[in-house]
């Protein structure tokens, strides 16, 4: 993916939220997906300090790993009002992915909607000439 390309776009869906996400690496794809999710969850309250957390993400496939990163991010927002603002994959081995995530306190923003869950519907992580892409549906 080139620097001037967007990392996610909104697609039409009759009831839920559908986005297409792009990344030059799988880590970039996860970061773009979290950014897209954050857009609908809330906004960072930047005056507050950030905290870091190590997450162990399970998943036999790229799709499962991607959804599980997003499920974790959604839970952190729903319960702790924290948004994952930055992530790095520190280890990717078989069915486990270790993710170092930066979290920031967050509140509701102008585009906030209630995301109930991150779905697997039609999800396929595809490789492209520029890296990776995937379409995600969030249930609202």
């Amino acid at each position, binding site marked *: 993916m080139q620097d001037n390309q967007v990392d996610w776009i909104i697609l*039409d*869906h009759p009831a839920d939220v559908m986005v297409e996400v792009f990344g030059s690496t799988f880590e970039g794809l996860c970061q773009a997906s979290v950014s897209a999710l954050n857009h609908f969850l809330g906004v960072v309250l930047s005056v507050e300090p950030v905290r870091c957390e190590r997450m162990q993400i399970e998943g036999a496939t790229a799709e499962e790993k991607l959804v599980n990163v997003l499920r974790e991010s959604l*839970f952190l927002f729903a319960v702790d009002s924290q948004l994952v603002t930055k992530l790095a994959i520190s280890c990717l081995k078989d069915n486990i992915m270790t993710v170092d995530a930066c979290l920031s306190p967050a509140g509701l923003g102008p585009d*906030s909607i209630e995301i109930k*869950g991150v779905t*697997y519907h*039609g*999800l396929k992580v595809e490789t492209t000439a520029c890296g990776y892409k995937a379409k995600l549906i969030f249930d609202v």
Partner: protein
Amino acid sequence: MSASKPYKLKRIDENRWLIPKTGKMKAPGLIFASSKLLPDIEKDSSPDQVFNVAHLPGIVGHAIALPDMHWGYGFPIGGVAAFDMEEGIVSPGGVGYDINCGVRLATTALDKDFLEPHVPVLVNSLYSAIPSGLGSRGGIVLKRKDMNDVCIQGAQWAIGRGMGDQADLERIEDHGAIQWAETKQISDRAYERGKDQLGTLGSGNHFIEIGYVDKVFEESVAQDWGLFEGYVTLMIHSGSRGFGYQICDEFLARMVKNISSQKIELMDRQLACAYLKSDVAREYLGAMAAAANFAFANRQILMNLAKLAWETSLKLSPKELSLRLLYDVSHNIAKMERHELEGKSRMLCVHRKGATRALPPGHPLLPTFFSQTGQPVLIPGDMGRCSYVMAGLKRDLDQTFASACHGAGRVLSRNEALRKTKGRAIERELEDRNIYSRAAGRKTLREECPEAYKNVDEVVEIVQRAGLAKKIVRIKPMGVIKG
């Protein structure tokens, strides 16, 4: 329809379309739609989702979609599927994240002319009294033990604390509590996500609506149910909030992980499921029932909050208001039910995702006061047009496992609705139609604008013509609170 589809819709009659059984399908698909509605339905992928559901193991009868169907995830919204207890499965995606999202309708002793000048005061009062909107909290904060009690007792938990009458229980599906709820299946995370959301409305299409009966189709049934022309009603649409979302999420992830070991071939990962005889299926059903009971309690509490706000703001005595529950039904649920199939009575696991149970007169699960009339089937439309109350019918029960539609069904995406309403003040447009509205979300009214939904008149006509339920009354909105 595109030529690349692996199926071709075949018209059966003016209300029904068949997806014939081909390839690895375990059952045919059946879509209820008129020629007028079909183009809207075909605009999205919902018929593909019916086709996908028809591949699930142990499915019996048809994979069904009702006329309010639209694209969901995994199952279509407006979908019904029943599974054999021995060879079949249960799928969290066939219930949805908002477990036991549902609707209840209450009648009052007030007439429209009396209430009309007070509607803005009432709506503002309800809006202040009921926590609503995105991630709404501020309801009752539950300790873990209290949460367990809610999950077992359902609506009774609220009634035991003075929020409603014992008589309400007979007017709630499953008497307000599914008996096979298991609290040991509730994770700490589900508890955390739901512990302060009981007694909150939520956001999106969840609503509280003050309406009035504007047309009566079946005078005797309407009278039996306390629905009189010109009289005011209250409708509440909400579910199990974050508690249910988390339970669905966790079991879906578990079933996705286990799918290959069960040797189930899925058309879509969101259809992840487990054989009904497996431990994970039993555990999911126990947790799902717990979330369903949380939702029954939630709607019971919301109605009580509405009653108190109504009495206080309009200075009415409980007798003057006389808010009485007519019925409360689930839209998102999987249940073990006995149905006649090809002349045999069979216990089946019936999934309804965006569909309403519609029991006919004489059904053994109905309380005596509905045994002559059939079950009230509540069909909310959109906030600008109307809603319907129908009654379950005996005819053609097998074809939908006693189910009917749950609403109008969306026709515009939220983005499209926002684009089409750019620059419009929906609140003022509704006021011009004597409908006073309040919404917690900045964009909610535009996303939920009337034209974002199919015309419920057309949807309900198909349900009636197909013999799934019959119209009893039509209700027009006067005031709406959207989350």
